[in-house]
């Protein structure tokens, strides 16, 4: 469903991504593995229109969405759960969730969607009136995930789900992502830890200094400890 061809992107005078080719099939879980600072975040930002690419193409169901605005790409069902969560700090938990359903067709079903997100993260319901800025790190991550799921997402792009979280919370997060995937969602996850994503991944790309250096089925690549060691250290 998503295809990226020869994507080049960067900030200021520097180029971060030097021609990325990747694809995600319907219902597939694709992981981009790479160490910090090698362009994972930049890749996701370039795909979802937060950072206009310098060259290359992004195709969604064969349609060229490379130069669409971020809001149009989101409306098309490609939902980016960004690094740092970027919650609406002065809005309540419920309001944050509702904003996830901003897109017109989704808005009319917002209550049904709230129900589904509450099923995944029950505590969101109890804490609905709390301001987002008062949440803990793990709660924020879950709220960011829940907010993304309020939309009519077909493909979820998640930037380092475990960044900065305690191990026990990390487990919870990946468990809930797993549930989402079982519901048929396509996933593109950027991560730096091969162990976390083992259950989620169908296919894996290895990203190094802005280029994809390896691609393969997850059970093959993730089992190759020597290879992972050499890339992720």
């Amino acid at each position: 469903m998503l295809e990226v061809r020869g994507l080049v992107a960067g900030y200021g005078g520097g180029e971060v991504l030097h021609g990325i080719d990747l694809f995600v099939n319907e219902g597939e879980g694709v992981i981009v593995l790479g160490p910090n600072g090698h362009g994972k975040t930049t890749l996701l930002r370039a795909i979802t229109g937060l950072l206009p690419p310098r060259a290359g193409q992004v195709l969604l169901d064969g349609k060229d969405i490379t130069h669409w605005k971020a809001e149009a790409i989101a409306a098309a069902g490609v939902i980016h759960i960004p690094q740092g969560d970027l919650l609406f700090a002065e809005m309540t938990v419920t309001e944050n969730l509702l904003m996830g359903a901003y897109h017109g067709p989704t808005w009319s079903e917002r209550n049904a969607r709230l129900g589904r997100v509450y099923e995944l993260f029950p505590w969101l319901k109890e804490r609905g009136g709390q301001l987002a800025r008062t949440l803990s790190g793990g709660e924020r991550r879950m709220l960011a995930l829940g907010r993304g799921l309020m939309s009519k997402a077909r493909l979820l792009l998640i930037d380092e789900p475990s960044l900065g979280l305690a191990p026990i919370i990390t487990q919870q997060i990946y468990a809930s992502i797993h549930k989402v995937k079982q519901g048929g969602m396509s996933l593109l996850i950027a991560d730096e830890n091969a162990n976390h994503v083992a259950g989620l991944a169908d296919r894996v790309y290895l990203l190094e200094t802005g280029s994809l250096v390896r691609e393969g089925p997850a059970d093959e690549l993730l089992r190759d400890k020597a290879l992972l060691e050499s890339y992720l250290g």
Partner: protein
Amino acid sequence: MSAQAAVTAGVIRPKLDEAAAPWRRVSLYTVGAVALLLLVLPWVLLRLDIGTYLMTLLILFFVQAVVAQSWNLIMGYGGIYSFAQVALFAVGGWTSGVLVHSLGWNPFIAILFSPIVAVIAALGIGLPTLRLRGVYVVLLTLAFHELARVFAVTGPRFISGGGYGLVTVQTFQFGNAIGDQRTIYLYYLAGLIFAVATFVIWRVIHSPLGVAMTALRDSETYAVSRGINQFRVRMVLFTISAFFTGLAGGYSTHYNGGISTTIFDFPRIIDLLAMIVIGGWGTFGGPILGAGLVIGIDQYLVALGDYQTLLLGLVLATIAVFAPQGLWPLIRRMYETYLAPEPLAPPVEVSPAAPHDTKDEL
């Protein structure tokens, strides 16, 4: 550094070099020629029928260019959105005006106190204001302007002159010189103030202080994290700016023989702003160019009355949005092509999607 390396460095001349050794970009011949021209100009002009009128315009230009440059130093370079410039000009004007009018001092002595009092006033505005950011500075400096206006209009009689300002202040006297002879002296005095202000401001822009202020303007977070004390840099700039503005104010009082409370009217601020914006916001020569243009064009458009104001407003808005550097880049390119002693280093390319809060270049 080895000789080889020195040669290479000289050839490549990284961007910072220009800031460290600004004189390399200045042709002494050009500066000398301009200075000579300005020195000789009155003797030529006064042979013309409208010579006296042109001399008046030039004096006006010198004064306004000093104020515009000082304002641009803090607003364009320093990123301090201060609207207190006219008020500081007035502080300078009133200071020497009162000293001469009420205490009977000699204007040449009194004018020395104009910049000093203006600097004191600037410290008074700056200390509470300059720690705050953009929008607060706009408001507080407008507030200072308004307070100064109210004080000038309703204050004690030796200041307010009954609401009109100081109307009969003794002018500069140069021995027994009268008529054109006196105009020439006035011209040289204004030119001297202009030259000193321009040189100092040019030097400040290219000093380490100038580098610090440009860094703060272009990427505040980064600059502060590198240990630049933003408050102190702003304070120093504000003080320098106030110094020359006050001096210009003092000159203006003894040139016009008084200072009127109408100086606080909004159009005065707009005129100065127009000089900076049209000439080139945050560029060295912009305000000088702008002062010349605005004063020159004013003479033709003044008959248009309110159409002129309408036009000025739209031009300001359009330039600010679509050509934020005004006309200066054009002139500068011509200078670099024909007059600069050394060829221009290749410009560093900066993409508009820089990751931090960069602002205008130059």
